[in-house]
């Protein structure tokens, strides 16, 4: 029961942040834009369309009233109509979102697979050559613009070595699996469609790896410092005194303790990954929100851009919440 209360309490704490965030998006959407109507109607709208739009979004009302309409729209699911597709923004987002979720999950998995062992290694060889090399590699990733890693990965593994497909979610010759979640990998797994499963897995490798290679430093860094901190603790010394070998102490005790603070970085990681997907999806033509964002920007589709902003921000906020909960659950010292 305490657990449920804990979650509810955290959710309540989110409300002010959400209010603040939506207020800022409101200001961006309605106040800072030079020509609001034009922005929301799209560059090719006719004067009648413009007028209709003004009426629909209440753009002629005083600002405080506009805020009310804006919030009402947000909450009821009316996030505007995209001038390029003609459909509600929320609907479009729903179409593209699963692919990004898939990509993000794959990227997180790879990031963890790379990040945790390198963090452990770096800590074990503190200030040695291995530590410095690892630091240099992840720094190079972190300091690269995401498009650099994306293009490099594309070039090397997509073209020169031609192992993995370079664009899209599925080969054009294949039919997508039955839509349950919208995520090709999950759906093909659930429907037993092995051909699609293998194909879509093959497709996700390059973009997910590009993302992971760019951002794994976030995990490595915290794992390393966490390990170093754990090494100082008394129970490590006591474990040695018990007669455990170095490997046993490191892997049975140090690593598990070190992983606990590492969960705090989950929100940060997701924020970075989502920012990165905008670029990576464009490069690999991965049909997710990032790709949708680039398209929207190119066609000056402002409502879509704002919709994406809200979606991404809420995702990151929720990810942070999830990380908090995960931390409380995993650490036995915190009673929930």
């Amino acid at each position, binding site marked *: 029961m305490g657990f449920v209360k804990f979650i509810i309490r955290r959710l309540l704490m989110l409300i*002010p*942040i959400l209010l*603040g*965030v939506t*207020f*800022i*998006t409101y200001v*961006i*959407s309605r106040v*800072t*834009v*030079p020509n609001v109507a034009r*922005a929301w109607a799209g560059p090719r709208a006719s004067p009648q369309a413009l007028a209709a739009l003004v009426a629909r979004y209440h753009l002629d009302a005083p600002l405080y009233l506009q805020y009310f309409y804006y919030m009402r729209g947000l909450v009821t699911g009316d996030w505007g109509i995209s001038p390029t597709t003609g459909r509600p923004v929320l609907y479009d987002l729903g179409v593209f979102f699963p692919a990004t979720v898939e990509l993000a999950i794959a990227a997180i998995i790879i990031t963890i697979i790379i990040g945790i062992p390198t963090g452990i290694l770096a800590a074990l060889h503190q200030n040695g050559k291995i530590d410095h090399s690892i630091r240099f590699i992840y*720094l*190079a990733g*972190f*300091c*690269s*613009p*995401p*498009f*650099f890693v994306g*293009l*490099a990965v*594309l*070039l090397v593994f997509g*073209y020169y070595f031609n192992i993995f497909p370079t664009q899209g979610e599925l080969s054009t010759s294949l039919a997508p699996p039955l839509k349950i979640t919208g995520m090709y990998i999950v759906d093909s797994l659930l429907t037993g469609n092995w051909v699609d499963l293998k194909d879509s897995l093959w497709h996700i490798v390059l973009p997910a790896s590009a993302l992971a290679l760019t951002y794994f430093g976030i995990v490595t860094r915290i794992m390393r410092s966490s390990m170093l901190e754990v090494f100082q603790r008394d129970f490590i010394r006591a474990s040695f005194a018990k007669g455990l070998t170095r490997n046993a102490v490191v892997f049975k005790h140090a690593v598990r303790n070190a992983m606990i603070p590492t969960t705090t970085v989950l929100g940060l990681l997701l*924020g*970075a990954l*989502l*920012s990165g997907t*905008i*670029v990576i999806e*464009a*490069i690999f033509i991965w049909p997710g929100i990032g790709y949708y*964002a*680039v398209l929207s*920007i*190119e066609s*000056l589709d*402002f409502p879509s*851009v*704002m919709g*994406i*902003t809200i979606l*991404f*921000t809420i995702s*990151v*906020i929720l990810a942070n919440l999830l990380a908090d909960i995960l931390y409380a659950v995993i650490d036995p010292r915190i009673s929930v």
Partner: protein
Amino acid sequence: MGAVIATGFLILAISVWITNNAILPFNIYVITPSIALQPPSFAHFLGTDDLGRDLFSRILAAAPIDAEVALSVVGSAVVFGLILGSVAGYVGGLVEEIIMRVTDVFLAFPGLVLALAIASALGPSVFNSILALTPVWWPSYTRLARGEALTVKSRQFVEASRASGQTTGHIVFKHIIPNILPVLLVYATLDIGNVILVFSVLSFIGLGAQPPLPEWGLLTSQGEQYLVSAPWYPIAPAVAILIVAIGFSLLGDGLRDVLDPRVRGLFS
């Protein structure tokens, strides 16, 4: 090592800017389709782009633009953050609460996403990018400044100043801010590289610098379609960003190691 790269970059940026591109080997705006997409050679160090312009020159020419954006954004962020953070830290109470809550809200946005939103609202241009990027960075500096202000607040000379009846404004500006400034500047140098990174992504997507201006992110996106046929075209400017970003990152790290403990030593 980082210092070398960082200063090199700045010197480059300044010299190109001052001479108005005159020191560059080739004119970056002249279009010569006949020599388009040539691989690196003696004449053209990094080859040519799809319009026959020398890529090496274009890459160098991008330096002042990126420098201008980075310095403007970081500069304003530091100024904003410094003032707001010091006031929040020193005055405390409701003022601090409000300022920090607002800061938290801004920090809830993933950086690139916020910049994207503002940039697309304002319209694509270099100047608008600066306007779009500043709100992404000022919250971190506000946080930092406020933390530092809290430490400085309890220092004796501040107490003495307050006891002798100085106004809050005077204390903040004359005592608190000068003591916080070094720490902020250390992080600022680190951030110059980060701003260039985000700005290049903005340009890559089409919201930052516009053609025919040279900018690394923009150059990369222009060259993207030639990735296989002329890989030097998109890769070279991207590498340029990487080098500069690493340079500033190392510089910032080094500065932090040197300056931070000393700064704390100043207070204790």
